[in-house]
């Protein structure tokens, strides 16, 4: 009896404390917002509530965007906008001064076009591989396999690693005196130029970025797969459909909305690729893995610090991303309607 009373007493104290804290918070905000509401009226109060997020957006997105836009029309090496010389569209003219757009060597700013083409092949290969591998993994992990939870963690684990850590680990594995070459030599083979041959470096850049991101997309696709009603598979089985037919006629169509999300996210992320590649190959060998964001970074932050040119290039990149996103949204809407 005494014990039970003790427990009830403790419960009451905790609840009272909770009440006190809750009431204090409510009183605080009430005291804060009531005068504001009295001042501006209740209809305008929603603006007050979105203000914190709006401030974050303005400071970290809108102002940098406006600054970037302004820098794109200025020249010189001065850091502060006020000290820079207006040059109109010269930076864009510089970027697009090309004899033949398909041959970067004929362009005045050849590295911009090399980076552009590198980004295109990287997006195509990386996103293609990422979607296929993530889908395959999600399909396997959706089956009743042994230690399923363990394997799900294993595939997701690289997502938790810092991109720089991922890049450095792979660099140590792949360098001339690295682990992989040591294994090859131990088995009587010749060292392979993983980090100095254009083909190998491009392959590993795609491989590493797929390896480090696939867990995230696998998880999204797995959720999509689990939302497909099992009755559909049972019905198709009764109708005599084999597994491939069930996959083509049921899984793929019903997974399309999720696939579209994966596609949009992975394309945007691939176009913005920087951290892993910068730490892994730093754009090399030569310019073989220099992508758009690294070109912008190098142009702005390496001597001779052409901030205007970099800002113009980033506007071009933003335009490409905008067009890609609009196309994907349109395709998404059409498929929803269909």
């Amino acid at each position: 009896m005494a014990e039970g009373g003790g427990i009830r007493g403790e419960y009451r104290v905790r609840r009272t404390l909770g009440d006190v804290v809750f009431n204090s918070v409510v009183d605080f905000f009430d005291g804060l917002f009531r005068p504001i509401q009295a001042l501006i009226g209740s209809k305008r109060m929603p603006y007050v509530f979105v203000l914190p997020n709006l401030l974050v957006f303005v400071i970290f997105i809108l102002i940098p965007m406006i600054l970037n836009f302004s820098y794109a029309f200025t020249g010189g090496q001065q850091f502060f906008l006020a000290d820079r010389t207006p040059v109109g569209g010269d930076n864009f003219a510089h970027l697009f001064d090309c004899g033949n757009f398909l041959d970067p060597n004929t362009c005045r700013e050849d590295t911009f076009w090399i980076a552009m083409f590198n980004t295109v092949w990287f997006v195509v290969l990386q996103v293609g591989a990422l979607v296929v591998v993530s889908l395959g993994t999600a399909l396997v992990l959706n089956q009743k396999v042994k230690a399923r939870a363990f394997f799900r963690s294993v595939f997701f684990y690289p997502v938790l690693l810092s991109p720089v850590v991922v890049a450095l680990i792979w660099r140590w594995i792949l360098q001339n005196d690295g682990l992989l070459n040591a294994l090859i030599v131990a088995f009587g083979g010749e060292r392979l130029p993983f980090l100095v041959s254009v083909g190998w470096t491009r392959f590993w850049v795609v491989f590493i970025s797929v390896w480090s991101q696939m867990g995230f997309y696998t998880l999204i696709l797995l959720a999509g797969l689990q939302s497909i009603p099992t009755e559909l598979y049972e019905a198709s089985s009764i109708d005599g459909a084999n597994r491939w037919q069930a996959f083509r006629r049921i899984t793929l169509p019903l997974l399309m909305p999720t696939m579209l999300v994966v596609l949009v996210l992975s394309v945007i992320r691939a176009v913005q690729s920087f951290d892993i590649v910068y730490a892994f190959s730093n754009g090399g060998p030569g310019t073989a893995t220099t992508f758009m964001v690294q070109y912008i970074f190098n142009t702005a932050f390496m001597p001779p610090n052409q901030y205007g040119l970099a800002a113009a290039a980033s506007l071009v990149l933003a335009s490409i991303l905008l067009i890609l996103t609009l196309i994907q949204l349109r395709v998404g809407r059409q498929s929803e309607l269909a």
Partner: protein
Amino acid sequence: MRKLSLVLLLLAALVMSVAAQDAVELRMVWYNDGNEGEVVRDLLDRFEADNPDIKVVIETVGYSDGILQQLPLQVQAGEAPDLARLTQFAQLRDYYLDLTPYLSDAETFASYFPAPLLAAFRPDGDETGIYGIPTQLTVTGPYINRTLFEQAGVEVPSDTSDAVTWREWVDAAQAVAEATGTDYAVAIDRSGHRIAGPMISSGATIIDSEGTVTIDSEGFRAFAEELKRWHDEGLTPTDVWLGSGGNYAPATNYFLNGQVVLYMAGSWQIGNFDANIGDAFDWEAVPNPSGPGGSTGMPGGATLMAFASTEHPAEVARVMEYLASPEVYAEFTARTLFIPGHLALPEFEYVTESESAAAALNVFVAEVPKLADQAWALQLYAHFTPLANSMRDRLTQYMIGELSLDDAIARIQQDIDEAIAAAGG
């Protein structure tokens, strides 16, 4: 009595804490090649003991990321430290602090250092300002692993000749590497500064007396082709130049690990080799190879610069005066095994028992008078950083086949012309 002691102790602690609170804190960005960070800390500890109103916090950063990449951005963004040790001083000439009004004896201070060097620190239009001090002079030049030469039974070319070409050196190093099973014959840091000396020795005329830069010359082409040959024939570790993207990359570890016979670096590595090679093998500095353009390395050095944005110019000047004083500078030089950039040092002896280090110092000191005028002109050229970066990156493109040599040369010329235009030159 015990009570009195306690009161005195408390009073002392109080006084010390007040003094500590009042101390002006100066931020000094620093990078290390060898032990110079420890040495300067030790010297500054003594300075702080004598000057309790100043505390110097050393922020040690990596050379490539911290000094070459981040420091210029911090300075341009108005976030400069009070002091920084750097190498590409011309790039930030508009941001330095003129110490003249804050020095107790500016004339004597200026007399400690070579006038052309002090002039190179100044922004355009200034002919008298004092903006920093050279903490050391450097000269680029090659090192060899003599033990490997002895094991291979190959004669060291410079033992019998004063004028050994790059080709003769590399052929000898290749013979040594083949005979001893060493991984590589030759290595050179991935740096435009490092290849500039061999280019000039090979006959390149990169900059003329008027300061006009012309890339295309027979000498430039000759050494560019030689550098490519090293890569094509597997004579050099390709990871350094081809596997490092658009960054500076040293080949130091290959030499430290005995994986390369001949390594082109410079005098700043003496302390590092002295400390880290020990008696693993005999190493030596050898004179710069000869060619149609002479036998020149590149001068260089590290400088300690004060920044105009500091809130404590007087305290910065006191630290500079202390580090520039002949006795302190001599101790710094003796303990770091650097070549001094000071004209009024008392007699001192380098703190090393290593014969290799002492001999290497003598070799590099003997290289100073051989430096070509063009090498000095390049080092003091205001646009040398973008020029050196372009030489490094465009020649890499040439070596992996992205550009022909003609195209690479044309691109370097275009890059430097545009860099000059961007700077309003």
